[in-house]
C-alpha cells in the first residue's frame, strides 16, 4: 500500500511535539549553560530540535531520547562555535535585556553590582574553556551527568571525559584565583 507522505509527516510531527514538550526545558537549560544567555539558548535549543526532527527517522531506540537530544545540542553548539555563530555578549546588557523581557523591576544597585561581578567572573571563567571542555563541565556540573554517561552521550571514552573535566576545572580555578578576594574564593 503506498504511503501517504503527508499523513506520515503529520504523524511524525505529532510524535515529535510530545518529545519536544517533554524535553524542552532540559534542552533549553543545557543550551543556556552552553551559551550563557536566553536569546542564544532559544536559538540553539530550537536548532537542536530541528536537527532532531530531521534525524528522527534514523533515531535508534537503543539510546535514550534525552541523551540523543543532548548530543545533538552539544554538537550543534560546538559547530556553531567553530563558525563563531554565538558571539560573546556583554553580560550586563544581557541581564538588562532578559529582565526587561520578564518585566522584572531593577534590583537594588549594590546587590546588582555584586551579583553581576560574580556572574561576569563565572561567565568569563567559562569562556576560558575549549568547547569540548565546557561541554563536559556543563554536563557534569550543571546536569549531574556521570562521567560514564557523558562519554556515551558525547561518544568519547571515559578517560577522555575525565581528562577534559580535569583540564576544565584547572582552568576555571586559575582564572577565578585572580578574583579570589572579590568573589570570596
Amino acid at each position: 500500500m503506498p504511503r501517504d507522505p503527508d499523513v506520515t509527516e503529520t504523524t511524525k510531527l505529532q510524535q515529535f511535539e510530545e518529545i519536544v514538550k517533554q524535553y524542552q526545558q532540559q534542552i533549553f537549560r543545557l543550551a543556556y549553560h552552553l551559551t550563557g544567555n536566553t536569546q542564544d539558548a532559544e536559538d540553539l535549543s530550537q536548532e537542536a530540535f530541528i536537527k532532531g526532527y530531521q534525524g528522527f527517522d534514523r533515531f535508534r531506540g537503543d539510546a535514550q531520547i534525552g541523551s540523543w537530544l543532548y548530543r545533538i545540542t552539544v554538537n550543534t553548539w560546538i559547530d556553531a562555535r567553530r563558525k563563531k555563530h554565538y558571539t560573546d555578549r556583554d553580560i550586563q546588557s544581557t541581564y538588562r535585556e532578559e529582565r526587561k523581557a520578564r518585566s522584572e523591576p531593577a534590583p537594588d544597585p549594590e546587590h546588582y553590582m555584586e551579583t553581576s561581578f560574580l556572574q561576569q567572573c563565572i561567565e568569563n571563567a567559562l569562556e576560558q574553556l575549549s568547547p569540548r571542555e565546557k561541554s563536559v563541565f556543563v554536563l557534569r556540573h550543571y546536569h549531574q551527568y556521570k562521567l560514564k554517561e557523558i562519554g556515551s552521550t558525547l561518544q568519547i571514552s571515559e578517560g577522555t571525559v575525565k581528562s577534559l573535566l580535569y583540564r576544565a576545572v584547572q582552568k576555571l580555578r586559575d582564572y577565578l584565583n585572580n578574583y579570589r578576594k572579590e568573589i570570596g574564593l
Partner: protein
Amino acid sequence: MKMCKHYQSMMIEVLYEEVNSAEMEQFEAHLRECPACAREYEQLQSMLGIMHQRRQPELDASYWERYWERLSSRLEQKITSHSFLENLREKVASLFPEIPGWGYRVAAAAALLTAGIFIGRILFTPSVPMQTREESSRIPVQYATVRQEVDQYLEKSKLVLMGLMNTDPQQEAEFMENFSLQQEISQNLVQQSGALKKKLDSPAHQRLKELISELEMILRQIANLDKQFDLDEIQIIKLGVKHKFLLFKIHIEEMKASGPDSTAVQEEEEQLIL
C-alpha cells in the same frame, strides 16, 4: 610526591562523588597527612561552589507554552524546503532503483563537472561568430512569439504560486489584501491557457503543454476561491503545487529557455513548423 600526583588526579572524581567508599577512605587518609593536597582539594571545592552560583534561566510558564509554537513555525519552513528536495530525490530513485549509494555520489560529481563545463562555455567561449547570429536570426518569428508568450505565462504563474507558497495566511494580514490581486492574475492566466496550448500543438512541446494544463488547473482553483474562503482550501492548493512539483517544472523550463544552446531551440522550431 608520587602519591600526591595520584590523589590530585583523583580529586575530580572525589569532588563529583564518583569514587567508591574504599577509595574515598584512602583519599581522606592522604589529605590528613598532606597539607598541600588538602589545600588544593579545599580550593577546588570552593571554586566549584562558586560555579554553582551561576545564574539559572528563570522563565515563566507562558514561555514554555509558546515554545512549541515558535519551534513548529521554524520546523514548517524547514520541512517545506526539505520535502521538496526529498521528493525529488525519491522520484529520481524510483526512476533508477538499481543505483547504489555510491551511484548518487558519482552522479553528483558528474553534475558538478557538467555545471563546470557549462559555466566554462558561457564565460570563456569567444563571442558568437556573426554567421551563427545570422542563423539564429532565421528562427521564424512564429516560434519566437510563442516562446515569449510561454515565458510570460510561466513567469506570472511562478509569481502567483510563490506568493501562495511563501505566505502564511494565518499570520499575515497582508495576505488577504494581496490575494484578490493573485486571483485576478490567475483568472487572466486561465483564460490564456487554452490558446497557448493550441499554439504548442506539436509532439515536441508535449511536456510544456502538460505543464500549462497542470498550472491551469491550480490557477483555476485559486481564481475560483470565494472571498470568504477557508484556510484549509489554501492548504489543499499548496499541497497540489508541492506534489506536482510545479515550481520545479517552471524552473526547468526557464533554464531551458535561457540555455545558450540554440540547437535545441532550432530543433524545436523545426518540429513546430512540421
